[in-house]
């Protein structure tokens, strides 16, 4: 069977050859122009097909012999051409010829034939006695196509350009195509049936795959001939699958006899051959049943490849090629075919390159580059195979190939055979490449590197970094074998980094071992030690290996250091893990000079016990601003930062998986560390905002691929001595970002510790606080206050004393038994010492017992605050130390109604040149009020003493008049009322300064100790100066007042008292014609809207300064309502005209002073009080002077209570309603 690509299905033409020759060109052109639908059996989808045919001359010997079903040369259609239009001629020769043709066909069994009668006008004209043309056709139809009249076709004037001619052409072509297709369908169908029958016999003993292969391939050829490449490919795929299945069955123990030939030892491994459409050599081998498995596979693939390239699917070729190669290797293994070692590698290598060459031949560069992902697999496979060949043939060994290797190489090259003629002339054929690569070490290296780099480049281009690194790693292995560690290093490093980054511990270990070897060769001592340390701690290695690497470190460590050498710093991560850190005291807050214990728990990762010579930690000092926040703030922050701290001072360090070893830790994604954050306003610590903060954001958000600095130790200058804390005041220390372990010359450094551990060191100024023992200090009674001295950094020496300036208002009562307690900074009681208090006139000195720094000294003293006389006046106190200060101010507390006194104490402390001012607040337990009850000229004084404190007091000697025999008890929040009547002696002053004094003592105190303390309340009483009488008179003629009617209001003002000497100052009197008068202003005001004042409601009267002088004023008022109405209010004021000059003479001033003096309690300090009064006077004068200048207006001044007596207070007058407009409202319910 000979068939070449591009063949067409044959159509045999008989009859008039010259006629056919004239029509051949147009026929061959016209036939494929229009597609035909090809309906097919077995449910295969119909397809449109363009038909072509190879028209050959009918020759009997070309007809297939009986039984020969070869499809390739099978004439699918027979055509008989004739242009006979003459009946005579037809009968004479044409008919016989046709009969002969028909009988030959019948003999052959061909039923696909067609008779074409060509008519031409030219021929008809020549013959005059012609029969109607149809008669010839009819005759032929009658003679030959007894039932198939369509087997005879008329073609009219085929060589002319007429519509008739074209019509006949197209109908002819349609007929031709239909018949061709029918023939195809019928013959191919029959062929397929036969083929299937043959296949079903495959279980029979004599069945041969090779024979069947030839049959089915013929079908494939026909499909290819029909340009049905898909169908052709299916044929090969079926053959492929069938063969595969057999191999598998064979592998499963179900061997077929015919497979024996394929199991023969492989003798040739020349690779695929894809440059020919059909590899006839191999085909013949198959045909003869002599093909090896590789031959068959190679041939099958070459055919599939050809068809796929026809189908423009080159990338499927590469994919299938890779599968084929893998599969062949597997199949040979399965069939247990004996193959020379390395032969398969050669075959695969050659095949890979052959496929790649083939693909390169049919694609342009851009296409190839875009489809790297399809070809890279083949490149890699070829690289792998070349590498294993290189190792096999001793081309990688440092010493070069041995004679044994050379023999092997020769054997392998022999199996390649001669180079194929197709590639003999090309410079870069796979055959030449392999030959060259195996010929010398240098050539091998060149080719291997070339392939490796090409594959790596491609992988990188399509983003398959891991695959690229894997090749890089095998390159590194190659370089190591070649004794070229320098070039190996970068590949190893690259791979190692990616494995570490992605956390593949086995790869890390493996690569690291290679790395160690490489570094050892390169004499990179530090790196080598580092890698060794990592390997020594690697749980993936065996105990022996780990010990070996550990020994490497020990050996180095024990070497005497060369003078130039310094210690080697390695990352500690490999050597040991910091597990836990414990502070004692747990808060990790210490004062300067105190000891802070830090307990480290370190896990050794080495396989054996290690003796560590030194352990050092580096501290990072961070100066913390705002020492004012103090310790409390500091500790709060700390607890926030260390959730693991749990308050017991323990910091746990997160551990990577212990199984995976040190390399693993880096790859695990760090857990989110979230903390609550609160933002408080600095002024009142109210919450402004709150949120969650991720503390290790820098770890989470970093780029993952290129975290380079994993194993690089920070080889800075490491402090070798242990840490001494220099005295830094008011700072906090955050702790060790670096810690170091040393073994001999080797140091292991942990460059940072996470979470950040820190402790705080603070320095404190000595501090003195005085606070009451009870909630409130009460004035007037002795009470204890607690002195607390936090010594801070100050060491209280013997002889140090507190100097308290004495104030008269608050004496310090020293008791005999006074002792101080000393507490340590943690609040433990250290001891108790006696305290001596010495008091001189000016200062009280408290000598302190010696106390070490950062301790607390506590003692109590009794103090008493005198109650100043009430009401308090604003004045100035001069402190004993010469400073002028405002006197303790008293304020009324709004809530409790208690008056409190801020008592300042000035203390000189031994640690400071400045005095400390401490303010103590005392509360006055009493509140006193007085009221004057007048009845005409008789006056009663009521004093109300209210206890506003929480303590119960007993009260004694309320003095204003005679002794009171009873001792009232004033309970908390209760009041005591005292009442006195006043009787006027002659010539009493107009006003009287009174003082109420009483003694009090807390009820609770036992009687023996009851020391009554004085309480004073000062007030002023005034004599009645004027009496005021009002009378309402109804309008004339009326008995009663009526609403709406004007009434008279008569006010009479009577002077009650004689003028006195001092009166001139109290009242502004003027001398008019020898009569002293004083001006008064009266005013009628009705607040309750009962009255309307008509006319003038106020006026100024001049009153003579004499007893019983009376002034009457008439006014008119109108009642607005009926009933008993209270009188309208009448007020009287002192009227001071603007011209009045305040005459404050020095003598009067002193007189006033004397007056006051007499009423003052003699117990008070003279100096202080005179000073106060003097200054009061000066203030007064200044004030009036200002008034004088700024306000040239008459002034009104009210009388003090009790100076004016209202006779008509509370009087009512009857007002009758107006009769006319009386409206009565009656509501009946």
């Amino acid at each position, binding site marked *: 069977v000979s068939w070449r690509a591009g063949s067409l299905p044959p159509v045999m033409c008989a009859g008039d050859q010259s006629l056919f020759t004239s029509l051949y060109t147009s026929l061959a052109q016209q036939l494929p122009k229009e597609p035909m639908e090809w309906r097919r059996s077995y449910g295969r989808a119909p397809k449109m097909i363009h038909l072509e045919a190879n028209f050959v001359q009918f020759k009997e010997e070309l007809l297939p012999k009986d039984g020969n079903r070869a499809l390739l040369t099978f004439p699918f259609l027979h055509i008989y051409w004739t242009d006979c239009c003459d009946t005579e001629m037809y009968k004479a020769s044409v008919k016989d010829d046709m009969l002969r043709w028909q009988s030959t066909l019948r003999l052959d069994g061909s039923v696909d034939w067609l008779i074409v009668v060509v008519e031409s006008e030219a021929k008809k004209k020549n013959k005059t006695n012609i029969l109607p043309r149809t008669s010839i056709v009819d005759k032929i139809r009658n003679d030959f196509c007894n039932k198939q009249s369509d087997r005879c076709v008329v073609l009219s004037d085929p060589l002319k350009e007429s519509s008739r001619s074209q019509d006949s052409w197209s109908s002819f072509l349609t007929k031709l195509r239909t018949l061709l297709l029918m023939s195809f369908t019928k013959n191919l169908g029959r062929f397929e049936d036969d083929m299937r029958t043959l296949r079903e016999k495959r279980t029979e003993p004599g069945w041969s795959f090779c024979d069947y292969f030839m049959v089915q391939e013929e079908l494939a050829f026909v499909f290819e001939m029909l*340009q049905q*490449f898909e169908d052709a490919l299916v044929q090969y795929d079926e053959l492929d699958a069938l063969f595969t299945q057999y191999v598998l069955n064979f592998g499963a123990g179900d061997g077929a006899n015919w497979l024996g030939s394929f199991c023969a030892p492989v003798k040739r491994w020349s690779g695929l051959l894809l440059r020919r459409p059909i590899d006839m050599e191999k085909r013949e081998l198959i045909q003869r049943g002599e093909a090896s498995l590789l031959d068959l596979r190679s041939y099958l693939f070459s055919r599939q490849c050809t068809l796929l390239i026809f189908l423009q699917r080159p990338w499927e070729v590469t994919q299938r090629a890779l599968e084929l190669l893998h599969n062949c290797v597997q199949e040979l293994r399965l069939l247990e075919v004996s193959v020379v070692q390395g032969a398969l590698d050669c075959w695969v290598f050659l095949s890979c390159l052959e496929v790649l060459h083939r693909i390169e031949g049919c694609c342009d560069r851009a296409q190839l580059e875009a489809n790297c992902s399809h070809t890279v697999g083949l490149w890699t496979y070829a690289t792998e195979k070349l590498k294993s060949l290189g190792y096999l043939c001793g081309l990688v060994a440092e010493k070069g190939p041995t004679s044994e290797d050379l023999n092997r190489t020769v054997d392998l090259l022999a199996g390649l055979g001669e180079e194929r003629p197709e590639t003999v002339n090309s410079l870069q054929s796979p055959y030449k490449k392999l030959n060259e690569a195996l010929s010398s070490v240098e050539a091998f290296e060149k080719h291997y590197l070339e392939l490796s780099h090409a594959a790596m480049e491609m992988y990188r281009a399509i983003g398959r970094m891991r695959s690229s690194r894997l090749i890089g790693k095998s390159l590194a292995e190659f370089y190591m074998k070649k004794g070229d560690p320098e070039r190996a290093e970068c590949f190893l490093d690259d791979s190692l980094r990616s494995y570490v980054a992605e956390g593949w511990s086995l790869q890390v270990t493996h690569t690291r071992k290679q790395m160690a070897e490489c570094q050892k060769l390169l004499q990179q001592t530090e790196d080598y030690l580092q890698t060794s340390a990592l390997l020594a701690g690697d749980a993936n290695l065996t105990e022996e290996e780990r010990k070996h690497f550990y020994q490497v470190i020990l050996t180095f460590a024990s070497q005497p250091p060369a003078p130039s050498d310094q210690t080697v710093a390695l990352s500690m991560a490999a050597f040991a893990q910091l597990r836990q850190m414990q502070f004692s005291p747990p808060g990790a807050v210490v004062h300067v000079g105190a000891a802070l214990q830090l307990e480290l728990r370190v896990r050794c990762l080495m396989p054996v016990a290690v003796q560590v010579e030194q352990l050092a930690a580096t501290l990072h000092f961070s100066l913390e601003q705002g020492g004012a926040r103090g310790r409390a703030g500091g500790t709060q922050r700390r607890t926030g930062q260390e959730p693991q701290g749990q308050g017991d001072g323990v910091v746990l360090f997160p551990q990577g998986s212990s199984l995976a070893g040190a390399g693993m830790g880096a790859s695990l994604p760090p857990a989110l560390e979230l903390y609550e954050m609160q933002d408080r306003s600095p002024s009142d610590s109210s919450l402004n905002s709150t949120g969650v903060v991720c503390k290790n954001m820098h770890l989470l958000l970093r780029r993952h691929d290129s975290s380079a600095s994993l194993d690089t130790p920070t080889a800075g200058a490491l402090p070798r001595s242990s840490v001494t804390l220099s005295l830094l005041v008011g700072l906090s220390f955050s702790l060790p970002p670096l810690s170091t372990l040393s073994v001999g010359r080797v140091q292991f450094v942990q460059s940072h510790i996470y979470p950040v551990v820190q402790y705080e060191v603070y320095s404190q100024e000595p501090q003195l606080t005085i606070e009451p023992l009870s909630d409130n200090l009460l004035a007037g009674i002795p009470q204890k206050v607690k002195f607390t001295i936090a010594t801070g950094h100050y060491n209280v020496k013997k002889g140090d004393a507190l100097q308290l300036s004495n104030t008269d208002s608050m004496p310090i009562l020293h008791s005999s038994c006074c002792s101080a307690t000393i507490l340590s900074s943690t609040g433990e009681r250290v001891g108790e010492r006696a305290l001596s208090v010495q008091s001189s006139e000016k200062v009280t000195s408290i000598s302190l017992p010696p106390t070490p720094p950062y301790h607390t000294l506590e003692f109590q003293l009794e103090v008493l605050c005198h109650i100043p006389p009430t009401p308090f006046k604003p004045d100035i106190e001069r402190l004993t130390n010469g400073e002028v200060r405002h006197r303790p101010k008293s304020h009324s507390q709004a809530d409790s109604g208690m008056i409190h006194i801020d008592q300042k104490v000035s203390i000189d402390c031994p640690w400071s040149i400045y005095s400390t001012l401490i303010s103590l607040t005392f509360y006055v337990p009493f509140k006193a009020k007085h009221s004057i009850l007048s009845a005409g000229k008789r006056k009663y004084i009521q004093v109300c003493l209210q206890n506003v404190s929480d303590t119960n007091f007993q009260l004694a000697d309320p003095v204003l008049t005679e002794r009171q025999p009873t001792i009232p008890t004033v309970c908390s929040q209760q009041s005591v009322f005292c009442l006195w009547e006043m009787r006027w002696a002659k010539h009493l002053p107009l006003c009287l300064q009174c003082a109420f004094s009483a003694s009090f003592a807390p009820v609770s105190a036992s009687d023996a100790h009851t020391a009554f303390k004085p309480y004073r309340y000062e007030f002023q009483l005034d004599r009645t100066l004027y009496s005021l009488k009002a009378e309402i008179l109804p309008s004339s003629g009326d008995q009663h007042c009526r609403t709406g009617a004007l009434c008279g209001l008569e006010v009479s003002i009577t002077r009650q008292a004689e003028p006195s000497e001092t009166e001139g100052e109290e009242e502004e009197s003027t001398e008019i014609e020898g009569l002293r008068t004083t001006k008064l202003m009266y005013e009628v005001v009705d607040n309750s809207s009962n009255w309307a004042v008509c006319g003038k409601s106020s006026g100024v009267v001049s009153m003579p300064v004499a007893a019983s002088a009376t002034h009457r004023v008439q006014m008119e008022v109108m009642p607005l309502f009926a009933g008993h109405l209270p009188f309208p209010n009448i007020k009287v004021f002192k009227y001071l005209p603007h011209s009045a000059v305040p005459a404050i003479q020095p003598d009067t001033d002193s007189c006033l002073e004397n007056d006051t003096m007499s009423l003052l309690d003699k117990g008070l300090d003279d100096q202080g009080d005179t000073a106060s009064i003097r200054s009061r006077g000066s203030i007064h004068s200044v004030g009036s002077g200002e008034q004088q200048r700024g306000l040239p207006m008459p002034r009104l001044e009210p009388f003090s209570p009790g100076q004016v007596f209202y006779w008509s207070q509370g009087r009512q007058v009857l007002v009758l309603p107006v009769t006319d407009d009386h409206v009565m409202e009656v509501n009946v319910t």
Partner: protein
Amino acid sequence: MLTRLKTQVPLFSMNSYTKLGEKLKLSGLSLASTHSHVIRLGRHNSKMAVCIAVIAKENYPLFIRSVPVQNELKFHYTVHTSLDVVEEKISAVGKAMADQRELYLGLLYPTEDYKVYGYVTNSKVKFVIVVDSSNTSLRDNEIRSMFRKLHNSFTDVMCNPFYNPGDTIQSKAFDSIVSAMMVQAS
């Protein structure tokens, strides 16, 4: 010449040789009788995986087990390299299509000795199953069902409140599922 194909018959895609047999049935050329011989007589004692790996979203192994143990390193390399293809396949599916994406990624890549199959959960946890190339009896569907089983078991592991996501898997239940899928070292 001018002959062209107007319509195309659905083609065989030669993904694997074993798959082909199934497909050929459709073409009307039955190979049924051939198949019947295959599965019964396995030379390999089971049709199972040789290496099973679970890989975290961040591409570090959560679980990896292989048989036989001597070859462990090689499997680790194989699985690790296969991540390249997994990533390629994931990114090949557009973002919009990510929801409908099939979890099973199919054959990642064949090597001479092994076939590597991949599967990606929606949370980007990868499952990789390595099968011996000589183990031809394993069909695509069986691989799929293995992945499904693996996924179910993995979900159970994740549901364990004591399991910290991201940790290596140390679950007996998961272990036994994996063991059942693996070739028992013969």
